């Protein structure tokens, strides 16, 4: 009886009793959600354009952040560090196309997926060899101050991250929807050979999409690196993106942001109000539960494309 009360009654009474705190939890969840979306975006871009689930996306986040912080440690100003890091990510995209993807044109998705597992190990290793395994502080000049607004504690850094995330998602959604390159990217995702037959330069498209994913990884690396320091565990933030992808759909840019927001709010509310009932730390598995619940009704995710195959 006590358990039922703790699950079905007490949390709702608590919410009704302290609506300001509930609002703070929801806002906190939304801000975390944007951070998850930033990581999920990288996955979506590559999956959308090449049908590859990029296992190395977390490693790309680490690699980009390590490169930036490494350059800044060697005295490069932020703008130069950002430019050079973007250049490195484009070069990486070219190398991935030249030495990995080109050999695997028209192969099964699982083959490409396994290739990205290899890429993950390469990036993890190279990043650590080049820049070490120390925790590095990353300060990109974004304000990081807390302030109260109507009893709700907000942080200027989280607000900036939300703004940057929103701008990125909007730009990418427009890019995919309304530019010839965006349409070409979608055509490549549907069928490599068909895209080639109508004159779409597959190699160039792959370089573009991996470069854009590299740029997204850099932004995600900056945001997460500024929060927790640039270190190896950045690789693990990919785990945070998985429920977002399941929920939002692997092929939808807006899905990544909406999925991120739902997961962010859902897990924070669950952790704060229901966590103590289950011994705490429920948010990790709760995110997956939430995503699975959505899948029961929409197997392709909220915004994913419904796949119809002739059998």
């Amino acid at each position, binding site marked *: 009886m006590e358990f039922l009360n703790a699950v079905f009654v007490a949390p709702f009474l608590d919410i009704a009793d302290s609506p300001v705190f509930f609002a703070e939890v929801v806002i906190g969840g939304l801000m975390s959600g944007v951070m998850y979306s930033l990581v999920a975006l990288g996955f979506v871009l590559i999956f959308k354009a090449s049908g590859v689930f990029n296992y190395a996306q977390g490693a790309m986040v680490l690699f980009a952040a390590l490169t930036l912080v490494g350059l800044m440690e060697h005295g490069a100003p932020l703008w130069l560090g950002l430019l050079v890091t973007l250049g490195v990510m484009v070069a990486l995209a070219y190398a991935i196309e030249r030495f990995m993807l080109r050999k695997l044109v028209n192969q099964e998705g699982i083959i490409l997926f396994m290739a990205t597992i290899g890429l993950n190990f390469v990036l993890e290793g190279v990043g*650590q060899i080049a820049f070490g*395994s120390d*925790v590095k502080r990353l300060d990109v000049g974004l304000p990081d101050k807390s302030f109260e607004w109507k009893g709700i504690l907000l942080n200027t850094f989280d607000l900036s991250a939300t703004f940057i995330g929103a701008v990125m998602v909007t730009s990418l959604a427009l890019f995919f929807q309304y530019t010839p390159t965006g349409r070409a990217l979608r055509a490549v995702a549907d069928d490599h050979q068909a895209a080639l037959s109508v004159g779409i330069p597959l190699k160039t498209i792959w370089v573009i999409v991996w470069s854009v994913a590299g740029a997204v990884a850099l932004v995600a690396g900056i945001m997460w690196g500024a929060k*927790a320091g640039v*270190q190896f565990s950045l690789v693990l933030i990919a785990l945070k993106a998985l429920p977002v992808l399941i929920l939002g759909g692997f092929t939808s840019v807006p899905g990544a942001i909406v999925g991120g927001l739902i997961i962010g709010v859902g897990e924070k509310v669950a952790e704060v109000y229901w*966590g103590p009932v289950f*011994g705490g*730390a429920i948010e990790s598995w709760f995110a997956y539960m939430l995503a699975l619940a959505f899948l029961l009704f929409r197997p392709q995710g909220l915004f994913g494309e419904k796949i119809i195959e002739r059998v």
Partner: protein
Amino acid sequence: MKFRSLLLGALGAVVCVTGVAVSKAAYSAEQFIPMLVYRTGPYAPSGIPVANGFRDYYTLVNKRDGGINGVKIVFEECETKYNTKQGVECYEKLKNKGPTGASLVNPYSTGITYQLIPKSAVDGVPILSMGYGRTSAADGRVFKWVFNFPATYWSQASAFVKYVGRQEGGMANLKGKKIVHLYHNSAYGKEANPTLETLAKKYGFKLTLIAVDHPGQEQKAQWLQIRRKKPHWIFMSGWGVMNQVAIKEAAGINYPMDHFVGNWWSGSDADVVPAGAGSKGYKSATFHGAGAGWGVHEDIVKHIYGGDAAKAQENKMGEVLYNRGMVNAMFGVEAIRTAMKKYGNKSMTGAQVRWGLENLNVNEARLSELGMKGFTQPVKVSCSDHETSGPVMFQQWDGSKWSFASIWVPPMRDVVRPMIEKDAANYAKENKITPRKC
């Protein structure tokens, strides 16, 4: 022809036998110690300084003293990535190396320690889980092969409560105070909970337990709860990125950092980096000094780095976790030395080192000889007490370095020891172990 074959055979046999004998003789002056390390993976920033501390201390003993009483220390690293499965594989790979097998093993992970406890008695390899692992292994009557001196998680938690009591002007003032335990949601993180719950009942403070899942990069929900509860003190049992994010979040909600105290695995140099100036005032428990101002560090610079202190610091010398690895290596070496007093100056077996650990007595005079006077506290192990209830120090980050911020605080042995004995007795019953008479 037959005679020639016989002669050749005899010669071959002599070469083989003497060859083996020669190689045996060369190896008989070596003492093998396996090193389970994590220089890669998410916990590498913590694992690297620990591993360097071990490596440098063993190298120092070899270079400065010519080994332990003339017996050279040989060590081999095996990468665990702080992963229990890989840690057990490393142990299996290294346990039979060297002339007498592994002298002892330092698992450097509570998860790995739990897995090795049943194996240690079978393989005859003692475990030195210094300040981590299974707390009730402090009862040597049940856990003959496991040592966790100078103090356990439970003793540490009791020392924290005692420290808070002193800061609040007396233990009676703890009544009604709110304390949060923010812990890594793992066997390690949960270790302090039973002690804190017992002490909450005893002293009347309100304890809230808040878990953080591995690896701990996202803690917004936990810190929203903390902000709502407005605790007077926070005690943290974290590791790796969890510590760094927690300190940053605490600074973010303007929590008074001098009331935020980490355990001794939550107070390294890496932990305070991401929060920058915001981490100033943060405290943590410890059982040894920070920095490189002791005699042993001078010896390391002189004998290993050729007088180049900058190079030593590049290798993390003086960082909290480097010093932890170094002091851990020192206890292991002193245990082998103790064993040699009884068994002679030769390679010790695991069983002999176990005896050395159980009869270890590193007093003030010995610490002074080792260049560690004031760096750590004396330790005297016994058959029944593998913990020794060593006192705990609280250090504070001033924005650029860690400094001692308290006197040595003895744990509440009267509270902790009965809990240890009870838990050990349950373990003995479950595993059909007859406790030794000590």
